[in-house]
């Protein structure tokens, strides 16, 4: 037992240099983050709350606990990294960065979850993820950095690793929505977001900088997770997520807004919900834009937990499938109760998570990326009801 007299927290003492001291000292332990945290809501247990985890980080930093402690191991992995706590924190704690520093230290050597190690290695093999045949015609044939041309090209479209393998139709849809406005260099590599969230923030930083050199100027992304990481490394002004870019660009160039029809089926407007991307919402602060765009082409339905993590959380659904499923179940219940036609996502790992979950429940609700929904409204402009 330590008492106030012996070792008051916040008193200067020997520290291990694992965390940025300014970031770690910012927490005032008020506990306002507890109800915002999906893992605390599941367990109602201080250990799995942001404040509890910061108390654990402080014990690690001050040497009261070491990295072999099973609670530290468990809580570093149990956290979704959704950063919902940051939006309610009165003291402005940058929890996402603290988590990265924690996992950098915690997940070294034999402590790295084997799957995370494999994913980190796999994503670094850039050639394995260069644009494949499925996106033929979209990417330019050269891998050289391409300055933004003055002829109307405003941004470089980034091809996220997961998306270009799993959902290449998303990038194609973007090109349909923004003809001549975005350029798609090939040989992009990986932004490193997944590494940052899995204990490899050093490599993650270098990868984002390298991508920033390959895609100079404004980078357009369809993945909230990649966008959050890129903005942290390259600066917010270098990064635009699709929904904010569309509204900005169409606001400046109303003549370039394509005719978008309202989507309907059997004479009634399609009912469409949204699942926010945590790092888009909590990291980049983008919430209204995707909702506004959905509402332009369909009847928008706000799901009660739209702003809360769906449990995909980057690689979390692979590393902690059972916890991921517990977090997802609430969302699936709400989607099924809302009588939706589609759920829109703005991040490919959320897309994968919801597609898998709804398929297991044999739901008739289909999952679309925002770009796909808007492209559907483009294609249908001359057609009758689908």
């Amino acid at each position, binding site marked *: 037992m*330590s008492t106030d007299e012996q070792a*008051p*927290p916040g008193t200067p003492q020997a520290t291990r240099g694992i965390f940025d001291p300014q970031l770690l000292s910012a927490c005032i*332990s008020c506990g306002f983050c507890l109800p915002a945290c999906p893992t605390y809501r599941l367990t109602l247990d*201080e250990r799995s709350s942001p404040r509890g985890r910061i108390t654990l980080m402080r014990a690690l930093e001050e040497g009261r606990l070491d990295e072999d402690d099973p609670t530290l191991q468990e809580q570093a992995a149990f956290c979704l990294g959704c950063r919902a706590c940051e939006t309610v924190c009165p003291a402005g704690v940058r929890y996402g960065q603290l988590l990265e520093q924690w996992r950098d230290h915690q997940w070294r050597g034999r402590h790295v979850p084997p799957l995370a190690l494999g994913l980190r290695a796999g994503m670094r093999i850039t050639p394995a993820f260069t644009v494949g045949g499925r996106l033929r015609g979209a990417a330019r044939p050269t891998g050289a950095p391409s300055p933004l041309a003055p002829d109307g090209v405003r941004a470089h479209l980034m091809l996220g690793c997961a998306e270009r393998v799993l959902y290449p139709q998303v990038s194609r849809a973007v090109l349909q929505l923004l003809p001549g406005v975005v350029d798609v260099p090939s040989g992009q590599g990986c932004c490193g977001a997944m590494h940052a969230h899995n204990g490899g923030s050093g490599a993650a930083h270098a990868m984002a900088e390298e991508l920033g050199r390959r895609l100079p100027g404004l980078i357009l992304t369809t993945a909230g997770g990649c966008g959050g990481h890129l903005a942290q490394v390259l600066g917010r002004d270098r990064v635009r997520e699709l929904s904010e870019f569309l509204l900005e660009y169409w606001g400046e160039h109303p003549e370039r807004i394509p005719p978008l029809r309202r989507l309907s089926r059997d004479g009634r407007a399609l009912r469409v919900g949204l699942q926010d991307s945590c790092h888009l919402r909590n990291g980049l602060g983008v919430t209204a834009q995707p909702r506004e765009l959905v509402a332009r082409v369909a009847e928008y339905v706000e799901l009660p937990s739209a702003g809360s993590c769906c449990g995909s959380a980057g690689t979390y659904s692979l590393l902690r499938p059972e916890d991921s499923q517990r977090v997802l179940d609430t969302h699936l219940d709400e989607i099924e109760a809302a009588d939706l036609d589609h759920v829109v996502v703005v991040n490919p790992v959320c897309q994968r998570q919801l597609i898998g979950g709804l398929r297991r429940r044999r739901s008739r609700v289909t999952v679309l990326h925002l770009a796909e929904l808007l492209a559907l409204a483009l294609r249908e402009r001359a057609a009758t009801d689908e």
Partner: protein
Amino acid sequence: MTGAAPRTAPGPLDSGVLDELRAIVGAEHVLTSDGDVEPFSRDATPLFRAKPDAVVLPATTEQVSAVLALATRRGIPVTPRGAGSNLAAATVPEHGGIVLVLTRMNAVLEVSGAELLAVVQAGATTAALADAAAAQGLLYAPDPGSRTVSTVAGNVAMCAGGLRGLKYGVTRNYVLGLEAVLPTGEVLRTGGRLWKDVAGYDLTRLLTGSEGTLAVITEVTVALLPLPATAGTGVAYFDHLADAGRAVARIIADGALPATLEFLDRRCINAVEDFAHLGLDRDAGALLLFGDDGAPDVVAASLERMAGACTRLGARGVTLARDVAESDALLAARRCSLPALARLAPITMLEDVTVPRPKLAEMVDEIDRIAARHDVVCATFGHAGDGNLHPTIVFDPADGDVRRRAEAAFDEVFRTAMRLGGTITGEHGVGAAKRPWLAARLGEDQLALLRRIKTAFDPAGILNPGKLGS
């Protein structure tokens, strides 16, 4: 004191005790490893930490009773804990032993519009209770700043306050009945669903604010009110805080009992403006936020009357908000106070003195003088309607002997508040944090009575030892 003295020497509980605890609540709800108990070694109070030997998370009143009976039998300290959002170190287990966490018992059991009451388990959050009441058009009036996280039983144990104290009172004014477990294991039901009930000593009131030293509250019955139809807010700036104090006196003397009367001093205004860029008047000596709720015409008349009082007493500027969005914008200044101050330095010491309403301006002036004398950064905001001030000192512990200076400054603040007829804590509680000043506030006779009451409830002295009544 009769019975066994609490264990004061720390150390692991013997394996027989742990086996019994596991048999009572299930093995997964007894935590003993260093990492598992670390998060329960502190609450929201800066500079206090003490590690428990075990953390126990019961799911039923029967389990709470069995744990307490065992603890009394074996002389093991037990510190009850809700969400750990209190600011008095009341849930820091200074004597080790068991931290008893009630967050798993979080059901809202009943909201009755016909009886104007609600029944909740100990660990339901204040916001969950308020939301359940609002869904039926009813108001749970106490609104402590931590309402989204704090538990109802925690509010009752600490007698939490909030922003509506002047018009609506505080937690104690809404507790009708309790289910509570004595340290010796007996389950009591005090009060009940009755608005009138004078049978016996008022144990409900005694347990309210007892800070987990007399019994463990497991269920709470609270009174509700009809939800006010609407609410409105206004803001006034004054050159000097004393002018704002006179305006508050005038508003109340005019017969108004406003729902909101909050103030920020000049340092606080500037900290908020630096942080949130709300366009506040940086040169003002005080910002007074006033508001009322009720029927629309009543609210409009009340706001006009309060605005008029402020203007007559020399306000530099007065603004009224007539809708919710405008009100929210004005209330942002008050809501931003703690965030703005917390960002100034790593340690934020938020204090809680209360003085008689006419002494408010004098107290704030004294606080400024004391802070200057001890060379600490202190800003003050608070509830002008009920004289409750939150002087807040921020510092970086790496900065020499600043912690000692901050503590010396607060010592003077507390003594000054008492000299002006006030108290050392209005709504945060005594806990471990205010213990050094309790004797000065209560006197020896009252302290002795507290100890006798404590012994009557807790003969073995196991419940939150070292705090109130010890």
